[in-house]
């Protein structure tokens, strides 16, 4: 039951009448010689880490070594509790959850790379806002992780999830695509709709550069995780309503790789271009690395 392309995954789902998460679980059993139970237990450990990283970022005093990030997730939570959130409670929560994880990551806390550390806030934020809003169980969230991993696997296999290779589109774009597909399945959408959501998410950030200040996984990464989870929610909403991506998922993934390859070295995690190369970016870099 192996596959490398989105189209093959959809065919397997159709032929066997399975969800993406079910295909991924069966595939993993084959690949790893582990039982379903062992695999699900291992994922539940990841889910638990995701949950505690959100909680930690929202409740504890989290600050990075550089001092660039920390405390912003809490600000969003505090505003939501006192005043009316501009984009609704669900979106406000999603934004703060994703930022909480990135702040914990920058402060040398424990996270799950999904698919990378720099994009690790998007999938947990999407899963846990949905869980709270619609009372989903941990087992359902584990299915969400399985579905997300299917999308991430196809992107890793056919393109890249590394910022150094493909820019931020490959990191937060991939994470958003993974989260969007998970949301669609959790909300009862079809595998086809899940792939449309993944395609839309990726298309929304095609060309996004990776330009971290001082080369650190902090800024603008944290805010781009907030945009990433919003992107996933928006794309899932479209796909669940029957909106389709005009370009099929596999072609979007190919396009992402080609765009990534055409990005100059300066805009692929080298901290030599974009925001990292602004006067302020350079000043901050000197202050931090000169420490």
């Amino acid at each position, binding site marked *: 039951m*192996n596959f490398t392309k989105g189209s093959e995954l959809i065919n397997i789902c159709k032929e066997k009448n399975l969800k993406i998460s079910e295909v*991924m679980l069966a595939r*993993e059993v084959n*690949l*790893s010689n582990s039982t379903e139970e062992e*695999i699900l237990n*291992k*994922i539940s*450990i*990841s889910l638990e*880490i995701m949950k505690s990283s959100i909680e930690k970022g929202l409740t504890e005093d989290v600050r*990075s*070594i*550089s001092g660039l990030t920390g405390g912003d997730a809490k600000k969003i939570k505090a505003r939501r509790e006192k005043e009316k959130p501009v984009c609704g409670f669900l979106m406000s929560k999603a934004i703060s959850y994703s930022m909480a994880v990135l702040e*914990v*990551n*920058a*402060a*040398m*806390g*424990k*996270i*799950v*790379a*999904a*698919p*990378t*550390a*720099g994009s*690790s806030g998007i*999938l947990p934020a999407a899963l846990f806002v949905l869980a709270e809003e619609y009372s989903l169980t941990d087992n359902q969230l584990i299915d969400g*992780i*399985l579905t*997300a*991993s*299917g999308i*991430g*696997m196809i992107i*890793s*296999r056919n393109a890249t*999830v*590394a910022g*150094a290779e493909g820019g931020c589109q490959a990191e937060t774009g991939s994470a958003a695509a*993974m989260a969007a597909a998970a949301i669609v399945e959790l909300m009862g959408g079809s595998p086809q709709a899940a792939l449309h959501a993944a395609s839309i998410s990726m298309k929304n950030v095609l060309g996004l550069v990776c330009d971290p200040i*001082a*080369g*650190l*996984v*902090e800024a603008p990464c944290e805010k781009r995780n907030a945009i990433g989870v919003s992107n996933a929610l928006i794309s899932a909403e479209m796909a669940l309503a029957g909106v389709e991506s005009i370009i099929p998922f596999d072609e979007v993934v190919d396009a992402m790789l080609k765009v990534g390859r055409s990005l100059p070295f300066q805009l692929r995690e080298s901290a030599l271009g974009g925001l990292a190369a602004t006067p302020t970016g350079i000043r901050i870099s000197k202050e*931090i*690395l000169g*420490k």
Partner: protein
Amino acid sequence: MKDYSIFDVVGPNMIGPSSSHTAGACKIGKIAYKLARGDIKSVTFMLHGSFAKTYRGHGTDKALVGGILGFDADDERIKHSFIIAEEKGIKAEFHEVDLGEVHPNTVKIIITKNDQSKTEITGSSIGGGNIKIIEIDGVQLEFTGEYPTLLVPHKDMPGAIAKTTAILSQHKINIAFMRVYRHDKGNNAFMIIETDNPIYTEVINDIKAVENVINVYLVTII
């Protein structure tokens, strides 16, 4: 091409902030720890390339020391590894160096043990928390630590390899990859054996007894 597991995509579980600069660094440190087998007095880290430029901001230094203490990449004690090392009386120092034509995220670790013996190990963090070891005690080699891995220093003499693999066969251990390296003919050599099955102490002791085998190290990070 490699078949990605779901845990390659959603994972690793790790201490931030960077899979290559933090998680990978910790794994290289842990292999050095396994090679030294405890009793460490001091450690010198020679940081190359991006490791040298950004190690403070990424906590690469804390992760390396965490590895030397035997911590895994998802151990929350990494953040406090300097204090823990100090409590154990282990001294650590860091130097920014040029190690030549190697991966940008490379570190050479020089361990001095309490008996004054030294172990040198060089490793690169090649992305996504994956690593490769490229040199041990002056011998260039390559392994990843992703499989149960035996490192067997031996004398470059006939029979050492055959007898070692025969022992693995007796214990029904399948060899996934195996390579042999040597300094010069008839002198110090290394076998690197990566297996599909776990390796128990009994196997290690059997191999240690083989003629011309100098030592046996299990350097797995999984």
